């Protein structure tokens, strides 16, 4: 088997093989994180997601994440696979596998890897909604994808209509924004959309 550490693929991710590929006799723990396409973001229904990437840079950033994880924790093996193109509901878009002699390191490294991935790796998702067209998702802040730091928070649908979807105006930029910091009834922010991912 080819020892691929990071991978971008348009095919279904074989998570079983990925998990097995990190298991080692000296490791008592192996961890698999799987991110998949969620159907509902409050009242908005996703039909499928479409992922695009700056391929060469995404690979480099993923390799850096693996190296950094190995420097920070006593982890033996790290694998990251991200899917590109169309990903249907329930299908896996990202899988991260980590092995370590003891479980604490694998858990910590795994959490860090997915959090950092969402901040740094140049990959983007486009939501294809049931009734509202399609929309590239760009978190509001560069530092954090807040929607993922506060799982389960209230997510409200935006009021944009499909007719606005092709606008090139900067004011029409759709952004994820955490509920707590969203200005209420602020006309300048009325086009911001809060979406979980």
């Amino acid at each position: 088997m080819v020892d691929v550490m990071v991978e971008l693929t348009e095919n279904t991710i074989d998570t079983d093989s990925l998990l097995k590929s990190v298991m080692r006799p000296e490791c008592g723990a192996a961890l698999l994180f799987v991110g998949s396409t969620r159907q509902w973001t409050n009242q908005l229904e996703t039909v499928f997601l479409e992922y695009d990437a700056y391929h060469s840079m995404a690979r480099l950033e993923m390799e850096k994440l693996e190296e950094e994880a190995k420097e920070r924790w006593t982890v033996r093996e790290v694998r990251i696979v991200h899917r590109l193109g169309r990903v249907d509901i329930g299908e896996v878009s990202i899988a991260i596998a980590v092995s370590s002699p003891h479980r604490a390191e694998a858990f910590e490294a795994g959490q860090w890897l997915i959090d950092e991935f969402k901040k740094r790796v140049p990959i983007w998702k486009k939501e294809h909604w049931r009734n509202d067209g399609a929309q590239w998702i760009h978190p509001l802040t560069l530092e954090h994808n807040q929607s993922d730091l506060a799982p389960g928070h209230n997510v409200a649908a935006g009021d944009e209509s499909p007719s606005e979807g092709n606008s090139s105006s900067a004011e029409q930029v759709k952004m994820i924004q955490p509920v707590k910091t969203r200005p209420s009834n602020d006309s300048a922010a009325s086009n911001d959309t809060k979406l979980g991912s």
Partner: protein
Amino acid sequence: MNCLAKKVRVRLFAGLKEAAGTDYIETEWKTGQTAGDLKRNVMLEYPKLQGWISRSRLAGDKEFLPDSALVCPDVELALIPPVSGG
């Protein structure tokens, strides 16, 4: 390093690419220009993309560049809007 004035290409992605209607834009390179300078110049040249570019990071040779970094035009440049992989 010999960076003479010339046009450089900046790659675009995702919503920024869609807003621009093209997968790259061109801007004039000036000697001694930093990443921050380049972003400001591009915003002036493409006012419709100002909101997008102000939220994007510049990458040179596939690495994020701080605003203070001097960039040679010989590297591949890209504007990276907020990412949403995972």
